[in-house]
């Protein structure tokens, strides 16, 4: 199926009334969770995942993706009105968005954020549609050694998800691998790490870990403090939410910059929308005629990062849909969702599930239009969500988490595990262990072990098979290079320090 006929087919799927409804539900929920500080799209998707088991996978992925990109639209609202990012990708929007709001231009800032999100989000979907099919075709030639190398490359991306400490990120990833190997070994039927519990023979369900670490852990972290931030007034009326022509003119380059930078960074597994928004903001400032004004409330300072974090969504879906490699915690959960519905994300995904792939792509065009309509005139209404007392919100999140986990297997043992993983998630936050690598290890661990063992069976135990095939050798080489990156950075820092000390 070529791109044009694929897209036409996708629109026939996406505009079916039931899919339009789920797309709207996803975009609406995404906007709501984006607005709420402390509740991110990864946690929301994880919580709602069990409820999608009875849904058609195409409708379900349309809804979950709607939450993913909808949250990017909503995330700017709290950055602008409260100086508190609704999600990590909106941190940079605080710099100029909040300053614009303090100058009485909150409406314009919210409008620019919505317009930039729409333009860049649409560019991201176009690029996703054009790049994914050829990439999947290349990956069709993969066998077990290439899959192992691909998984190793995916795990090496942990370097980019590391945050402050690479060692902690690697440790979190190894714990993910350990959890992934719990249960019955498929090759030999040996029980591993089951601690005598028959409930663990099938392994630990991904949903329990994701909901525990993300939703419960996040809420426990937020419950450390009782106070809430003070919100700036939201302007009412469409006219007050539209930016002036001058402001739009000033944002021309920022729209383009955000779209391109966001997509390219999104395609790189591990980089993520927060990095995309920072880089886009940095480029915007670097090429600006008045860089000194950045941080004082310039519209470009809102348009560039907001565009980048929306375009990143399209980019991040490329490796997930075509190679089965998630680049962030949210795409890891989406990947797990596809596996739980019985699908096989990877090179055959587009060929075997054209309804799902093209339906998703077309729904993202539709969803972006819905979000623009939802976000410009209805922002004052959405902002009222911020008035919902947290003491009512937090027990509701706990309740949805318990119901979500219980609905997977009907087992109270799983709900106990939810509590344990919730505590783990909180402690990881407290001790600065990033949670995305744990999820990456958990999602990729099982497939990686299987691919490695199949490869070694093919070669009768000869490890050379992993490097004797060109694609696999290149990917393993890349994985090693990525893992060595921090050493290069450290060596460069020592070199610079030595040069400074000498002269």
């Amino acid at each position: 199926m070529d791109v044009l006929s694929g897209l036409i087919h996708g629109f026939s799927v996406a505009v079916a009334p039931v899919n339009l409804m789920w797309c709207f539900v996803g975009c609406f929920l995404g906007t709501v969770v984006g607005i709420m500080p402390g509740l991110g799209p990864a946690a929301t998707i994880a919580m709602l995942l069990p409820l999608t088991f009875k849904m058609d996978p195409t409708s379900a992925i349309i809804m979950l993706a709607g939450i993913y990109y909808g949250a990017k639209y909503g995330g700017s609202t709290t950055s602008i009105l409260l100086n508190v990012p609704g999600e990590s990708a909106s941190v940079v929007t605080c710099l100029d968005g909040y300053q614009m709001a303090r100058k009485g231009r909150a409406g314009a800032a919210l409008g620019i954020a919505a317009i930039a999100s729409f333009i860049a989000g649409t560019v991201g979907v176009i690029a996703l549609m054009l790049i994914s099919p050829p990439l999947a075709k290349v990956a069709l030639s993969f066998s077990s050694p290439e899959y192992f190398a691909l998984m190793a490359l995916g795990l090496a991306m942990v370097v980019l998800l590391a945050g402050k400490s690479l060692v902690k990120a690697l440790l979190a990833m190894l714990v993910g691998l350990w959890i992934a190997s719990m249960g019955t070994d498929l090759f030999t039927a040996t029980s591993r790490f089951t601690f005598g519990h028959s409930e663990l023979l099938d392994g630990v369900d991904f949903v329990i870990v994701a909901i525990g670490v993300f939703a419960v852990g996040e809420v426990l972290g937020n419950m450390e403090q009782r106070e809430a931030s003070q919100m700036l007034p939201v302007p009412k009326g469409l006219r007050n939410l539209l930016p002036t022509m001058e402001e739009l003119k000033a944002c021309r380059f920022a729209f383009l910059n955000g779209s391109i930078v966001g997509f390219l960074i999104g395609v790189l597994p591990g980089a993520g929308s927060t990095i995309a928004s920072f880089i886009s903001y940095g480029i915007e400032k670097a090429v600006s005629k008045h860089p000194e004004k950045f941080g004082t409330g310039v519209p470009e300072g809102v348009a560039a990062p907001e565009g980048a974090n929306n375009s990143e969504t399209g980019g991040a879906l490329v490796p997930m849909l075509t190679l089965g490699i998630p680049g962030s915690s949210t795409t890891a959960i989406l990947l797990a969702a596809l596996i739980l519905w019985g699908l096989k994300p990877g090179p055959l995904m587009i060929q075997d599930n054209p309804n799902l792939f093209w339906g998703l792509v077309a729904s993202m065009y539709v969803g972006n239009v819905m979000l623009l309509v939802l976000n410009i005139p209805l922002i004052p209404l959405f902002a009222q969500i911020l008035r919902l007392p947290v003491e009512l919100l937090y027990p509701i999140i706990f309740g949805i988490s318990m119901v979500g986990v219980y609905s997977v297997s009907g087992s109270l043992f799983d709900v106990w595990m939810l509590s344990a993983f919730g505590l783990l998630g909180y402690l990881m936050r407290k001790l600065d262990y990033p949670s995305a690598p744990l999820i990456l290890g958990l999602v990729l661990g099982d497939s990686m072990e299987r691919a490695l063992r199949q490869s070694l069976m093919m070669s009768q135990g000869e490890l050379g098979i992993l490097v004797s095939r060109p694609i696999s050798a290149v990917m393993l080489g890349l994985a090693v290079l990525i893992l060595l990156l921090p050493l290069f950075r450290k060596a460069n820092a020592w070199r610079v320090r030595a040069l400074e000390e000498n002269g």
Partner: protein
Amino acid sequence: MKSVANGDVVSGGVLAGLGVFVVVQASGWDYLAPEGPGPGFFPLWYGLALIALSLGLMIGALRRRAAAPEHGVHWGEVGRALFAWTALTVAIGLLNVLGFVLSFALLTFFIVSIMYRRPLGFGLAAGAVSAAAFYLIFPLALNVALPTGLFGF
């Protein structure tokens, strides 16, 4: 900072212990079978990596701790989070006795009135309304089962 360094030493120790456990368990399974790697192959390697990295983390933290200024942990904040976690765990423990609806109502009441110090009447109303809403949405509207207790709901 001293508190972070202490946390790294403790968490490094726990993870090193986990690594030792993984290696000991893995050594009891086949490393190589006639048809290829056995069930102990993969865990043995990541277990060893766990030990090596956590020891690295601990050594780095101990070195930093010697030079770092005093920086206290906000135990009050940690206590609040652990208090909330305990409430959630108790609510989970009550699921097979009281069922989801009553356990969840109690959990909501506890968070609203005890942790956030809102009036008792408000907490009771919040608990009752949210538990009823869960019952209406999940078992009745979505046909999703909730854990039931001795009272049958």
